[in-house]
C-alpha cells in the first residue's frame, strides 16, 4: 500500500527495514546487557538460548509448552533477543502468546524485538503490534511503529500512524526531517 497522499505523505515512507534496525539500536540504549558476563555465565546463557530456539523450531505441542514455561520462569534478555529474532524470521503462531508477553518486558530492546516479531506473524497481528507500539511511552518504540507500518502496510496501520504523528510532534518532525 502506498501511503503517499496521506496527511503526512511521503516523509515516513523513507523509513525502511533499516529503520527498524535503527530503532532497535536506539531502543537498546546503554543497557547493561552489553556488559559481558563471566564465561561460565555466557555459556549458560548460550545454552538457554539454544534450548529456546530448539523448542521454537520443534512443531510439537510439548515443545511449545516447554518454551512457554521456560520463558515464564525468567530468561536472561540476551537469550530472549535471540529467540525473538528467530521467531521474526520464522513465525510460529502457537507460541505467539509468548512473544506477546514479552512486549510487556521492561527492557526496550526486548520489547522492540517482541513487537517486531509479533508483527511478523501475519497481517492482522501486524496491525495489532503496530497499534501497541504506537502507544508505547518510549519514543524509539513509537518510531518502530512507523517502521513496522511501512513494512506491513494496511489501512488500519495507516490510521494508527496518522494519529501517532499528529500527537507526537517530535517523531513527526524526525520523520519529516528524513524526507529526501
Amino acid at each position, binding site marked *: 500500500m502506498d501511503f503517499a497522499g496521506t496527511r503526512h505523505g511521503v516523509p515516513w515512507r523513507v523509513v525502511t527495514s533499516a529503520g527498524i534496525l535503527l530503532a532497535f539500536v536506539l531502543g537498546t540504549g546503554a543497557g547493561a*546487557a552489553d556488559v559481558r558476563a563471566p564465561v561460565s555465565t555466557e555459556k549458560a546463557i548460550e545454552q538457554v538460548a539454544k534450548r529456546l530456539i530448539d523448542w521454537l523450531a520443534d512443531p510439537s505441542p510439548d515443545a511449545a509448552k516447554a518454551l512457554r514455561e521456560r520463558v515464564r520462569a*525468567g530468561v536472561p534478555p540476551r537469550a530472549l533477543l535471540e529467540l525473538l529474532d528467530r521467531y521474526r524470521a520464522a513465525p510460529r503462531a502457537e507460541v505467539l502468546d509468548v512473544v506477546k508477553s514479552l512486549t510487556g518486558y521492561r527492557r526496550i530492546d526486548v520489547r522492540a524485538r517482541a513487537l517486531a516479531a509479533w508483527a511478523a506473524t501475519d497481517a492482522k497481528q501486524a496491525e495489532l503490534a503496530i497499534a501497541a507500539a504506537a502507544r*508505547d*511511552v518510549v519514543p524509539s518504540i513509537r518510531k518502530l511503529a512507523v517502521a513496522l507500518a511501512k513494512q506491513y502496510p494496511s489501512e488500519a496501520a495507516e490510521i494508527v500512524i496518522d494519529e501517532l504523528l499528529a*500527537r507526537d510532534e517530535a517523531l513527526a518532525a524526525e520523520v519529516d526531517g528524513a524526507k529526501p
Partner: protein
Amino acid sequence: MIARLLVTFALAVLGLSGCARTLPAHADVHGNFLAAVNEGDPARMRRHAPEAGGALVVLVERTRVVAIDPIHARVRWTLPVVVTGHPVASASTVYLPVRGQQLVAIDRKTGIERFHTQLPGEALTGLAVSEPWIVATVLDPAKHGPAQILGISTDDGDVRWQRRAQARLGIPDVVGSVAVLPIGDQVTALRLDTGREVARLDVAAARDRDVALERVTHRGGMWFVGSDTRWVRLGVPGSRGDAEQLSRAYAQAFRTVDGVDAGHGDDERLRLWLRMSNIDTTPRDAILLSRRAVVALRLDNEGLPIRARWVHVEDKGELVAMEVVDDRVVLVREDGAIVQLSDDDGRVVDRVAGDEPVRGALIIGAPPRPHGNLRRADDPDVLADLHALLLEPDPRLLPAQRLAADLLWRQDEPRVRASVRDLAHGRLRSDDAPETLVLRDHAIELTGTRWGSGSSADVEAVVAELRKRPAFGEDGSDGFAGSIRAALRTGRPSVVHELTALLLHPGTSAEDLVEIVDALAVLQDPSAVDGVATFVRRYHADESIVKESPVLFAATRLLLAHAEGDARESSEARAVLRAVADDPLCEPHLRAVIATGLRALPAVRDRGDTNVLATQ
C-alpha cells in the same frame, strides 16, 4: 399516578397537621430510637428543662420504682409498683404501665399519683404522650379485631376515644394535634382530640424491602417508621417510603415489640443511639451500648462508622439504659448506679452509687444537642482504647468489639489498620474461644472490604486513577506516586490487583515500581503474591533490571514476608523464591538475599510448594 397523588396528599396532611408544630411537653421515651429525637427547638426545650425539675432517672426495679436526681444524687421519690411496660414522661408527669393493665400518672417532681387508668386491652403495645393526650395501643380482648387505639386525657386519665383496628398496631408517636402509628403495612394519622383518621399511607417498603413497621417516630420535621435496624423515611413525595438501614447491624436502633411491650428486657443492654442530621435524614453520630462497653462514633454520609469519638468500659456490671441528656451521656448500671459521661470526649463527669438491682430505666432531661462539640477533639486515647477493647475476653463485648474492628479498619493510617489484620490472622487473640473465632471471622471479612476514611466515591476515584496505564498521550506523565499513597489511606482490595498490574507494566517508572512494592508491603494483602512473584521470576536473570532500582530486592523481601504460613499464597511465594534461587543465571546479589531469607524461614512444609508452581 393515583397512588402517588394519594401518598402526596397524605403526607401533606401529615405535615400540615403535625409536623410543623412541636409541643414543649413532648418528651423523650426511654431507651429507644425516640430518645434520640431532637424535637422542635432543642435550645428552647433545654431552657425549659429546669422548670420541669431538671434531669430525672426513673429506675425500674422488680417491685418498685425509684426516681433519682442524678445531678444532686438524691432520691426524689419511690413507689411500690410493678412496671410491666416502658414508661413515658412529659414535662410534668411520668406515666407508668403497671401490673393489672393499669396506667399510672405520677407527678414528676413529687412522686404523688395524679391518677390511674384501667386499660381495656389485654396487653400494652406502646405509649406516646403529648399533653393533654396520651395515646396507647393495646391488644383487643373482645376479639373484634386484633388491636385498639386509645386516646386518654392527661388531665384526669379518662379514655376519651378508642378505635378498633383490623391489623396489628405498632408504637405510636404524637406531635402537635395528631397521633401517628403503624397499622399493618400502613401508617395512619389520627386527630388527637377525636381519634378520627385524617390520613393513611401505604408504606411500600414494608413489603418490598421487608421492613417491619413496629414504631413511628418524628424528629426534625421528618417521620420515620420501622423496627430494629431498619426504618423507612416518610415524606419524600412519590417515593412511597425510602427504606434505610445501618449497613452493619450492630444493635437495634428501633425497639421491637411484636405486638406486646414486655417491659424492660435483656435486649436493652445492646442498643444503638443515633443523632440524626438536622439537614437530611442521615445519622451523623451514634453511640453503641453493648453490655459493659459504650462506644461513641461518627458516621459517614453512607451511615457507616468512620471515626471513634471515645470508648467507655465499665469494670463492674452491665449497663441497662443509656440516654443522651444535653451534653451528657447518662448510663444506668444493673446495680442501680448512675454514670454520667461527657458527650464530647467520654470522660466520667459523675457517678452515683447503686443500691438495688434494676431492670431498666427511664432517663428524662433536656434533649441532646443537635451535634457534638465541633471544636473539641476526640479522646486522644481512643485508638488505644479501641485496641484494648479488642483484647477483652468478655464475650458480652462482642458487638462492641466488632464495631471497634470496623472503626480501626476505617483509619487512614495503615499502621493502625494492622491490628485488624493481626486479628484476622490470629496474631491478636490467638485463642480458640468461640467469641474469638467470631471476631476473627469478622476481621477476615473486614479485610476483604474497603479501608480508610474515604467515601465510596473517594475509593472509586483512587481505583480509577490506578487503573490508568502508562501510555503515550495519556495523562499520568507525573507518575502514580500520588495515587499509590492515596490508595494506602483509603481503598479496597481491588487496589492490590491494580498495583500488581502497574508493577508488571513495562512503562511504569522505576520510582513508581519502588512505591508500588512498598505499598503492597504495607497493605499485606496475600493476593499481591501472584503479581509480585511474576515480577521477580521475569527479571531475576536480568542484571540491568536488578540494577535499575532496588525494586527487585524489595519485591523479594515482600515474597519472603508472605512465605511463612500454610496459605496457598505462602506456598507459591516459597516455590517461586526457591526456583529463582536455584537458577544459576539469577543475579548473584539477588540470589544471596533470597537464599538468606529462605534459610531464615521457620521449618517449612515444602512438600506442596512445587505443585503450586506446576499448577499455574
